[in-house]
């Protein structure tokens, strides 16, 4: 049988292939050490962009920065009131322009180095340095000389020398930091508590930059190399999988930190995140819960949507006819039936938005401007000579532009239908993949375009600044001199009541002119284990991880007995005895 294949060879080949495959699997696992469940595990979505606090903007990144770093001041997770961080006290000069912080004496880095005012001076200047490419750099431009330092230009556009010594950030001594503002800025304090304005460890960073000018960025955030000053420090990083944090025993308030380990899992699919949560692998999931699951979750005690400082709206391209006419924009805004839309599509208790700034934004109350009335909307069009628009061909079909997503499509379909019914208007849908969508929006290549805006801090300035002329987030072509003046005046107004009035007047103009049509105000959608204590349910959905702890069964029972909410109990995955901080249990550190 000379032409027949050698059977032993074939069998050998087959057996080797199968064994090699199996071996490869086992080898891949053998290379990874097993990971124990952390005291607390949560997810905010996919892999983080960076662990460099000066290089990130996103909400999930902000969460992690609060684990790793601490700024001069923090925010109370319940009330959002400013509370001491690395600074133990501070005072304003009489003219409101100079702010002097006294740092606590026991502030230290995770490697034991003392944390001084010089660290803050260097770190804040790093934020302003163009090479750092910090996306929040412009927020610090309220500091004297800061804009000039970043851009090499004065506010009026004339060029000047970039000089770090002229920036109003000075360490007077080891424990005294002085910030000099260009103008009195009431919202500066709220701004300072952002997760971006934290110190980074100069010595380790500069050493790496000198040694590896090209690749330092990929080296200094590695576990072991990263030196931080927050309640936790990085102990492990598996890309696309997990970030493991351990309690930073060098942290000045470590005795009050309960969790010993925290895991931040990278989970891209929300359905999977939900599955992991239900299986007890995650203790907190926050983000886009699929709307189809919301009704089922609403009855559970671990899901309680709360008002959240964010607004979902449609940008209106005011450079295009017929949207350049205010009457048309107002007709669109007043003929939308937002309540129906919230109940039909969103279901988690989102609030119809008749103002751009959400209610509960600090002590600001948005003015009442327009209401919902299809009759009024029709009258507006009639008065403008555009009634029966379609029949007379005066109003062309409009295009509603949104980024590809099921929810955005559902909302757009309902809105288009409402406009068709109320105004006999032909609204066509156009969806685009995210980056192409942003590109088109930036180029004003749209009629109406979906958008959202989430506050950085609980202040109307966080919402209203973007509508000033030429602001990079305006993207509608709208410009109003009177609006700009009011915002400029509010920026430096030190009397809280007068400041609120200025913002309210500005918002009145905005909601009269309507370059944006507000649709709804967000709610936070935290799914959090009922056993978690110290969790911040607030309007910014912001957390201070140092306060998290596990309730004991007894405490959980007590909390439940006090709750007035009729909700189905769910099992807590926390330890029966709870997990309290060393200070609370009286344990030696």
């Amino acid at each position, binding site marked *: 049988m000379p032409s027949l294949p050698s059977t032993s060879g074939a069998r050998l080949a087959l057996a080797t292939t199968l064994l090699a495959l199996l071996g490869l699997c086992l080898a891949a696992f053998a290379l990874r050490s097993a990971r124990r469940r952390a005291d607390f595990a949560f997810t905010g979505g996919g892999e983080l962009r960076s662990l460099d606090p000066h290089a990130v903007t996103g909400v999930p990144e902000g969460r992690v920065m609060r684990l790793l770093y601490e700024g001069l001041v923090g925010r109370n997770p319940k009330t959002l009131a400013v509370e001491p961080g690395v600074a133990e006290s501070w005072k304003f000069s009489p003219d409101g322009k100079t702010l002097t912080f006294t740092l606590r004496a026991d502030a230290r880095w995770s490697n034991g180095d003392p944390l001084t005012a010089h660290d803050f001076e260097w770190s804040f200047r790093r934020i302003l340095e163009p090479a750092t490419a910090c996306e929040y750099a412009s927020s610090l431009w309220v500091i004297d000389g800061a804009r000039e330092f970043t851009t090499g230009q004065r506010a009026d556009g004339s060029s000047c020398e970039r000089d770090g010594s002229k920036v109003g950030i000075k360490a007077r001594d080891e424990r005294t930091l002085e910030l000099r503002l260009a103008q009195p800025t009431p919202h500066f304090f709220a701004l300072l508590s952002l997760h971006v304005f934290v110190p980074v460890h100069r010595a380790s960073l500069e050493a790496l930059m000198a040694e590896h000018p090209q690749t330092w960025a990929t080296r200094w955030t590695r576990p072991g190399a990263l030196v931080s000053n927050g309640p936790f420090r990085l102990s492990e990083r598996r890309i696309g999988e997990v970030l493991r944090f351990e309690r930073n025993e060098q942290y000045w308030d470590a005795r009050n930190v309960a969790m010993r380990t925290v895991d931040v899992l990278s989970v891209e699919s929300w359905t999977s995140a939900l599955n992991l949560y239900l299986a007890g692998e995650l203790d907190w999931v926050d983000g886009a819960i699929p709307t189809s699951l919301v009704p089922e979750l609403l009855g559970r005690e671990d899901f309680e949507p709360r008002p959240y400082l964010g607004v979902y709206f449609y940008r209106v391209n005011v450079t295009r006819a017929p949207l350049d006419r205010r009457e048309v924009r107002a007709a669109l805004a007043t003929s939308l039936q937002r309540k129906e839309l919230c109940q039909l599509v969103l279901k988690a208790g989102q609030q119809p938005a008749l103002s751009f700034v959400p209610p509960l934004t600090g002590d600001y109350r948005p003015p009442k401007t327009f209401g919902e009335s299809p009759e009024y909307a029709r009258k507006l069009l009639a008065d403008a000579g555009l009634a029966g628009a379609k029949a007379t061909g005066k109003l062309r079909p409009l295009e509603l532009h949104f980024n590809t997503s099921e929810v955005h499509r559902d909302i757009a379909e309902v809105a288009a239908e409402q406009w068709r019914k109320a105004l006999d208007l032909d609204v066509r849908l156009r969806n685009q993949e995210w980056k*192409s969508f942003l590109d088109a929006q930036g180029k004003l290549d749209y009629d109406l375009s979906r958008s959202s805006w989430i506050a950085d801090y609980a202040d109307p300035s966080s919402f209203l600044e973007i509508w000033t002329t030429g602001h990079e987030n305006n993207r509608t072509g709208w410009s109003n001199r009177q609006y700009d003046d009011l915002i400029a005046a509010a920026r430096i107004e030190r009397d809280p009541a007068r400041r609120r009035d200025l913002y309210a007047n500005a918002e009145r103009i905005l909601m009269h002119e309507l370059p944006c049509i507000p649709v709804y105000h967000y709610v936070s959608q935290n799914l959090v284990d009922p056993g978690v204590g110290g969790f911040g349910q607030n309007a910014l959905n912001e957390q201070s991880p140092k306060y998290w702890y596990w309730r004991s069964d007894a405490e959980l029972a007590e909390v439940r007995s006090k709750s007035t909410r009729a909700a189905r109990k769910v099992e807590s995955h926390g330890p029966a005895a709870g997990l309290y901080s060393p200070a609370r249990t009286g344990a030696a550190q």
Partner: protein
Amino acid sequence: MRRFLLRRALWFALTVWAVVTISFVLMRNVPGGPFSAERKLHPTVEAAVNARYHLDWPAWRQYLQTLGPLNLDEHGVFGDRSDVFGGILALDLGPSLQHRDVSVNELVAQSLPVSAALGAAALFWALLLGIGGGLVSALRPGTALDTLARVLSTLGLSLPNFIVASLLVLALAVAVPLFPVAGWGSFSHLVLPSFALGAPFGAYVARLFRAGLLETLSQDYVRTARAKGVPAHQVVLRHALPGALVPVISFLGTAAAGILTGSLVIERIFTIPGTGSHFVAGALNRDYALAMGVTLVYTVAVYGLNLLVDLAYAVIDPRVDLEKEA
């Protein structure tokens, strides 16, 4: 053999160059950039970020830097000594634009073993189910067992892997919690995703193998062996099996490519830190470096696997002469 390998190496170089060039042109011409976001950057800051990643350079210069191995930035042609030179020819895929802390090399190095393990396990399932099912079918043609195996394979072929995955999670992770719902780290994490990924290919292998085996079993040399009184299991294992495996092996190249590209869906459903998710994220986020890197890795993987398949032909079937190929 040597001429065969040499020719393949030349084609390989050409393929990689074409893939790099086409990817580069495509990526730079889709709208939107790596740093566009809902919250738009201040122009000064945007210019600084672009400069950091050389996106302010003219396209030809960016292309040369991507290709390497000479470094064109301020660190000089030969780079600084502590770091590798940039570019694909220097095996440096550059920094990721989206994940600032990691280089594309690191992303690939961390994720590729994971995807390889998943793919290998899936291939294992595919062969196990395919050869097992095919064997049962072919040895008992026309029986209920054969019908069952064929129905199952038709079902496996027509169900997309994400449906199989969701059903598996429902049945074996939620209803009966035998396996974790998602995640990575232990052997039990591997079972469901690799099965979901491998099953559709197993269904195809089963059909191929059944047909191949039935055909070889009717060949003259098999009949001769039977007539000589060789025991039935020996006839199948020694005489029929190798011939029936040839179509299966030729399918393995396609299957491996399919498993590679199919893994991105499975990786997402089971939150597995593999290369597939980087492939999608790289493209969606306009992370030019990452998208290029993963595309290259896939090119190399598919090319390499096909080479292995060709070599396997020669081992199994001596009639194949690699020197005369093409």
